[in-house]
């Protein structure tokens, strides 16, 4: 077993895909000799040549648009958008062409392409470098939207995305690029469209994806010390959504909190909460709660800790899940943990 980072696993996935399938090409901004700003494409140009991994002009709509044409004609392009917010110029291509080509042509033209997007905050970057726009993509029929939370999934999901006959928006949690796991690659994990239970529990389910899975697991660990058993579900696939795994978990635990970095209002968590309510109503002991980013434009680096869901904020939400104490009148709810401090909150 070797220690592998999430970014390293992505790099290996691209390398193996390039080696196995001559129709795979990797391109984007700075992905050539530099190896990408996060080094996910490190060494690929040297190993496979400029025909297989190369720098393109700095124009995201053109990058995705040319990938559409390549995928129409037998290639499997894997393109990189340098940061989440810089993917927005390509949004029209993604929505009007990538997502719809199969449908527009009655299934005659499929687009096996992958759009890799580093997303989310937490790396101390300046504006336009910390956005989470998964809801825009997940809202668009015809796209698969996938996000790994572990190095093993980073490898396996990217391999599956490259092999998929459907276009995949592959969201990489940039703050977790350097997370390590002991892992032998290649590895295959659960199928791409399945959610998985990362940690079993009995009292409530935390539903997270991408960068927030680690936060949810940490919250579950803390909760254990407080005597609560939290289950953590890692969605992995945001579209399509794995209702079965999520509903089964919530029916077992009776309580659910959805956690994501993106702003809460009209965010992906709203869809998750609605689906759980529709499917598990009689099993629920409390309303499904959402813990997301604040409803503000992504803040500057010195303020991002206030925006991003923390372990404390997740545990505060768990506290609000109408446990027995909260049914008793005149018992004030526990103070929020950030305000009170962890030690005080526990006492």
């Amino acid at each position, binding site marked *: 077993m070797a220690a592998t980072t999430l970014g390293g696993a992505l790099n290996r996935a691209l390398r193996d895909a390039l080696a196995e399938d001559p129709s795979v090409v990797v391109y984007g901004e700075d992905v050539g000799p530099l190896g990408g700003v996060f080094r996910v494409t490190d060494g690929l140009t040297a190993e496979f040549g400029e025909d297989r991994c190369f720098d393109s002009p700095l124009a995201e709509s053109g990058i995705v648009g040319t990938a559409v*044409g390549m995928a129409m004609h037998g290639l499997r392009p894997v393109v990189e958008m340098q940061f989440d917010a810089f993917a927005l110029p390509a949004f029209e291509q993604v929505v009007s062409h990538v997502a719809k080509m199969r449908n527009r042509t*009655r299934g005659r033209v*499929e687009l096996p392409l992958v759009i890799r997007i580093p997303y989310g905050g937490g790396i101390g970057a300046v504006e336009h470098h910390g956005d989470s726009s998964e809801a825009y993509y997940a809202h668009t029929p015809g796209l698969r939207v996938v996000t790994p939370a572990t190095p093993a999934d980073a490898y396996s999901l990217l391999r599956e995305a490259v092999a998929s006959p459907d276009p995949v928006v592959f969201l990489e949690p940039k703050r977790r690029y350097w997370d390590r796991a002991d892992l032998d690659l290649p590895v295959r994990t659960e199928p791409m469209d399945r959610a998985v239970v990362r940690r079993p529990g009995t009292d409530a389910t935390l539903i997270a994806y991408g960068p927030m899975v680690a936060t949810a697991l940490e919250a579950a660990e803390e909760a254990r010390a407080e005597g609560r058993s939290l289950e953590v579900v890692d969605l992995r696939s945001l579209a399509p959504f794995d209702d079965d795994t999520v509903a089964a978990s919530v029916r077992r635990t009776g309580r659910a909190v959805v956690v994501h970095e993106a702003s809460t209002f009209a965010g992906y968590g709203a869809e998750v909460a609605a689906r759980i309510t529709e499917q598990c109503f009689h099993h629920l002991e409390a309303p499904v709660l959402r813990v997301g980013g604040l409803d503000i434009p992504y803040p500057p680096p010195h303020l991002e800790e206030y925006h991003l869901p923390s372990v404390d904020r997740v545990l505060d939400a768990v506290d609000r899940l109408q446990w027995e104490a909260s049914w008793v009148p005149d018992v004030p709810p526990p103070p929020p943990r950030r305000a009170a401090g962890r030690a005080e909150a526990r006492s």
Partner: protein
Amino acid sequence: MLRAMVVGRRFDRQAGALTRQGRLAVYPSSHGQEACQVGGVLALAEDDWLFPTYRDCVALVTRGVDPVEVLTLLRGDWHSGYDPDRHRCAPQCTPLATNASHAVGLTYAARRKGRDTAALVLMGDGATSEGDAHEAYNFAAVWNTPVVFLIQNNQWAISVPVHRQTAAPTLAHKAIGYGMRGYHVDGNDAAAVHAVVSRALAEARAGGGPAIIEAQTYRIDPHTNADAPQRYRDDAEVEAWRRRDPIARLEALLRAEGVVDDAGMRRIEDAAEELAARVRERLSGDPEPDPAELFAHVYAAPTAQLARQRRELLDETREG
């Protein structure tokens, strides 16, 4: 070429009539632009690809696509009705200039397979203002892909005249900034369009890089049947362009050269009538789209969610 133009115009007129009868949801006419669409398409080799817009139905008919399949989009029973791979014609593009980069990617992929496939992108004067036009021109030039961008400058982007789109002396001048060749051609002269598109395609195929061709032409009809051109342009302008009609010009040339005579013209017109009659007949009934097909082409395999929605919709339609 004359035959294709006459047939194309008759098809165009038939489509307009079907729209007025309510058989088509909308129809953007090609009337006046036949020299560009026919001259351009006939310059393509068998393996080359055409990237048309919604206004390029005549180009598609000229390429050999079944006229009824061309009209699928505008009839409204599906989006694109023909098989792109079979005809080497991309689906008609409605968001302007967004298919131009697809042509760049497709020819790039063809080169990777060792083929010299070229592509002809049809775009209008309005589309050249879009950012996607810029990106496609630039990618094509940097990657040296064999793409010819044929700008049909029909003077009007719905109601906005071309001088409100650009301050460039001509749209062909834009080529200079991308380091590619630019051509300016009389877009109502089919022979000239054919010659310049053929030349640009040959140069591109030989590694000479992409090209922008501006063809000066005119949209004789309204933007679509829903447009009101009297609000923004004079009839006198339209009349002036009618006198430069591309079909009349080619016919006069071919008659003067002795290539075509009255009998020849009659044969061409009969063929055009025959096509119009077939289109009329095949579109005389109401389309019967299958609601179950709504779910068939979203993903390679239907998701659980779509399977459920399909069941619910079919139950609903049975109850209804």
